[in-house]
């Protein structure tokens, strides 16, 4: 009587092991699919190192912990998008955001802690430190959420430029560039971005 029972238990154990392994393998395949189809957003959340002051200031200075989201980045040479808010006025050629060469509609978005009043957006294009040809000519600046003022910039030639933009209650500013069919550069090189407000 013992042998058949042992055989039955052994057969059940075998099926149990097979079931567990099969379930695990199926989970792994699902994970593989999740990995393959992943299209993550390039996003950086900097830590809050200081509180926003009462007066008008740069809302996205790195010490206030802005969130930076970009359409793409140039990872081979580490042009990190967070350099946009580092406030560095003597940068190396590395310390800038550069979009990917394949990115045909580059954009970057800077967000802060809560809705605030925005009065201007300042940009330091690559032309300030490199060839003037690297300054972006055409772009759109939008306050977010949607429905707030936006600014369409055409044929900009200034490497350091401040655009007046009055948004009464914005929690982010988004900068969208035109690189297709424009006379300007085919990728974005931007050293600094500031958002004045309070």
């Amino acid at each position, binding site marked *: 009587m013992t042998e058949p029972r042992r055989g039955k238990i052994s057969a059940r154990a075998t099926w149990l092991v097979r079931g567990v392994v099969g379930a695990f393998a199926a989970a*792994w*395949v699902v*994970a593989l699919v999740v*990995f393959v189809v992943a299209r993550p957003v*390039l996003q950086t959340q900097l830590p809050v190192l200081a509180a926003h002051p009462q007066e008008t200031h740069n809302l996205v200075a790195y010490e206030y912990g802005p969130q930076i989201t970009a359409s793409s980045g140039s990872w081979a040479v*580490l042009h990190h998008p*967070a*350099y946009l808010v580092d406030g560095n006025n003597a940068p190396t050629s590395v310390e800038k955001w550069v979009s990917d060469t394949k990115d045909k509609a580059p954009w970057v978005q800077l967000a802060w802690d809560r809705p605030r009043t925005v009065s201007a957006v300042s940009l330091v294009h690559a032309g300030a430190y490199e060839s003037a040809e690297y300054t972006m000519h055409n772009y759109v600046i939008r306050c977010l959420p949607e429905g707030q003022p936006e600014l369409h910039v055409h044929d900009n030639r200034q490497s350091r430029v401040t655009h007046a933009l009055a948004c009464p209650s914005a929690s982010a500013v988004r900068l969208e560039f035109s690189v297709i069919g424009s006379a300007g550069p085919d990728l974005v090189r931007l050293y600094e971005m500031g958002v004045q407000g309070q």
Partner: protein
Amino acid sequence: MTRTRLRWILGALMVVALAANLIALGLHPGLHPDEFFQYLEPAWRHWQGYGWKAWEWDAKLRSWIPPGYYGAWMVMLSWVGVRSGATMHLFFQIHWAVLSVAYVWFGWRAGCAMGVGQSEADRSAAVPTDTPFDNAAADGWRSGLLAAAFCATLPWLAYYAPHTLVEVPASLMMVWGFTIWIETRNGHDTSTKKVFLAGSLLCFGAMLRIQWAPLALVPAIDWLVRKRFKSFWALVLGTIPVFALFAIVDWLTWGFPFESTWAFIDYNLIRGKATDHGISEHSWYLTTIVQRFGPGIIVAVVLLVYGLRRVYLWLIPALAVVAYLSTQRHQEERFIFIFWPMIAIAMGTCLGLFVGKYGRNRSWVWPVAIALGLVVIGFNARGISGRERLDFDDLHGLRACQAWAAAQHDISGMLIESRFHLTGGYLLVSKNIPLNSYNARFARNRIFNYYVLRSTSSAVTEAQQNGFKQVWEADRFVVLHRQP
């Protein structure tokens, strides 16, 4: 020797192998830069959207299959709450340490197959049927057991086991493939399913480590020469699904079937650009092998010569890889890693043959065999610990400091006194913040509020003068934090 006892001994050897591999992990084997940025970092970048991009990935020189493998694990680990890249890396190290225990099984099977049949009676008793323990009926068990023992305890195998280098899976697959070849060759088992599997394994290993591709030809040539056409075609057919997999993945990711394979061959062999990454003397591999063996090489050579008649075919891939890769000027020890499991199995087989021949009525033979094995293992351990230091040997402190700094809630950027991707990259940091090598110009940027520097570096004093304070240290490296 009863089958039950053999099973227990093999189980014990697997436990020993696992312990050895984990001890090797605990002893901090050298951190090979390639184990991070070749496959783990691309997987992380694809999944998380940020990470350093090595030049190989611009040159389409790598297949996305290994990052896909690691990526699936990363997703699964995230499902159970693991978000830290450092923990994921540890998981992968343990994962390979566990899988490398399979060498014990391969050693057992290949050793049995090569050691079996010292007499006609043995040969007739040694026809493999359904279970791998059938050869235990003949003398093969001694060779199998000693080959398994070498695989469990050879320090150089344990050293490599917990590495996320592509050589680790490639070697496992190819040794498995060679094991099936030698089993089906030496026995009367002509199972085409097994040979088909061998073809797939050898092909997969070769596609992962393209420099080892010629080795996969050895079984094919053997079966052709011996007019075992059925086995030959089964082997060839076995390669087709693997070729198809690599072709399709390259097509989908790089735009053309075998794009990464062609790019790799073009870069390394046709244009000879591998020499840009360092050159060595043609005798370097040989010298290194001698150093790793130490005086134990005398025992190894005597054993191999003693059993050469049985193991010469098995030795062909092991020796061939050293021979033809010695013709290349760019040499790294991991490129010939497969030499070691192959040679371990061959040594164990030969030692088993010795025991089988002289040990039947002599009680001293087993102790002598074990002593000989311990000589090889002991000198190999000494050959590893006494080896010349490499530039990545002392980076555990740096890696620990990087991980510690990355875990701080207020980190906005980190400068490292080395290239950060060599010790874990963004995977280790697991935060999308600016990272770069320390230099005076980057140090002016206030977003970098953590530095990881060598404790003896003059940059430490400079940083302290600029308002940084040492907040942590590990193994000759320190973490400095910008004070508010």
